[in-house]
């Protein structure tokens, strides 16, 4: 990570030697967000950011922390239920975008007779299963192979905080994302967080003060780009105020 980053603007061609050298079994190159392939073998960029590569997975993508969230298959998101149709809920992943569909049956233990009831504007933690550009995105709250919820489903209580998309990614990376502030706070008070890739964090922790403190900790770490020391200081300050 510490090696010099290649900063690109849209239209830049990625030179062959900047692409990952496959070390794993996978031979085909995977292109992530911000890159496109122009046959026969030109790779160009479509957004501005830093080129990131993963040799083990033989993947390359452009790292950028701005713009609107675009649904991608496999992402965990916090969606807002807008309305209920005949056999699915219409959910908003980001404001003012076409609704994603969440089938009534895509919940743990749901059947024709026991459908979940979700009122408009309630929150649900879901996984994106389909995000083709030809259709509206599709969500699910169960793991299709096991039928278990795996922590997905309606989010009750608490509140949500907006964070940058990069912060959401970091929080989902756990230790690699270097967000230690929550560990520090977690040693003293109990709380629960749910992170959506669409830049939303749901926090629940019993009383109002704890929830706000945790939300503030995440948002400040994000906005001020606090490092390890900064996060520790912030955590201490917040714990003192509680």
């Amino acid at each position, binding site marked *: 990570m510490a090696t010099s980053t290649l900063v690109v603007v*849209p239209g830049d061609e990625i030179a062959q030697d900047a692409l990952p050298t496959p070390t794993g079994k996978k031979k085909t190159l995977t292109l992530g967000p*911000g890159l496109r392939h122009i046959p026969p073998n030109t790779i160009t960029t479509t*957004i501005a950011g830093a080129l990131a590569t993963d040799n083990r997975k033989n993947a390359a993508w452009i*790292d950028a922390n*701005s713009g609107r969230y675009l649904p991608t298959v496999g992402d965990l998101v916090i969606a807002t239920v807008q309305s209920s149709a005949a056999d699915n809920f219409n959910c908003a992943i980001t404001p*003012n975008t076409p609704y994603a569909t969440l089938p009534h049956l895509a919940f743990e233990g749901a059947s024709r007779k026991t459908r979940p009831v979700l009122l408009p504007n309630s929150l649900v933690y879901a996984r994106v299963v389909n995000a083709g*550009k030809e259709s509206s995105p599709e969500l699910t709250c169960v793991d299709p192979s096991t039928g278990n919820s795996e922590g997905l489903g309606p989010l009750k209580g608490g509140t949500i905080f907006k964070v940058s998309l990069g912060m959401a990614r970091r929080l989902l990376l756990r230790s690699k994302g270097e967000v230690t502030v929550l560990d520090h706070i977690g040693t003293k008070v109990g709380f629960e967080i749910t992170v959506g890739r669409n830049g939303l964090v749901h926090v629940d922790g019993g009383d109002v003060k704890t929830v706000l403190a945790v939300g503030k900790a995440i948002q400040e770490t994000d906005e001020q780009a606090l490092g390890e020391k900064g996060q520790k200081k912030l955590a201490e300050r917040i714990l003192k105020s509680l």
Partner: protein
Amino acid sequence: MAPEATLSHLHRADGSATYSHNGYCIIGAVNGPVEVMRRDELPEEATIEVNVRPAAGVGSPKERHLEMLLHNTLRGIILTRSIPRTLVQITLQVRSLPEEETSCGVSPSLIILPHLLHTALLALLSASIPLSTILTSTLIAIPANSSPLTSPTAPDLLRAKPIRSAHVFAFSADGKMLLNESDGTFNFEEWDEAAETAEQVCCRDEGGVGLGEGMEVDGQEGGNLDVWLREVVNKKVQWETRWKSAK
């Protein structure tokens, strides 16, 4: 003087930029890809909406004209087919403009056009809208009795009056001309020379201008715009990844 730019400073818009150069200051915001109204929906590509809002008053035919020019140019660089049936909304608010704008002898819509294009591009970059290339643009004015002016300020133009013709060019990163608007009387040789000068200002020299070199060029030249734009993007990436090096 190289233009100044601040990126992603608005909270609501998906992408935003404030750009100031030669006495102009423009705030740009991009929302997208968002839901498109049914009547504007295109089955295979994204709809682009450009709103130019003047500093004083509401939009007039002059703004409609600018919107159309911007729309046609930007449609060429936005990868509209990769985000079909969506809307990319570009709003450009003129915040301040030089006093001499109306009296400098060149159509105000020509002087402001390069600045609007740059602001729109920066806001698009900030919103991470997929683009096929970047663009840079400049104004070349040919006065009646002195040598052509590159990217002149309004007072420059006022001093060089009368202006015989004015040309705005926009180029993509690989040196292809995306837009040309010319006004006044001129012959082909003059136009050709203006286009060549503009290309030098806008595009990176094939010979490879050093990164530092381009920016150091004397204020009159305005530096190299391609180099400037990359520097702005560099700053954006540094700002976004500063947590990696924070203590």
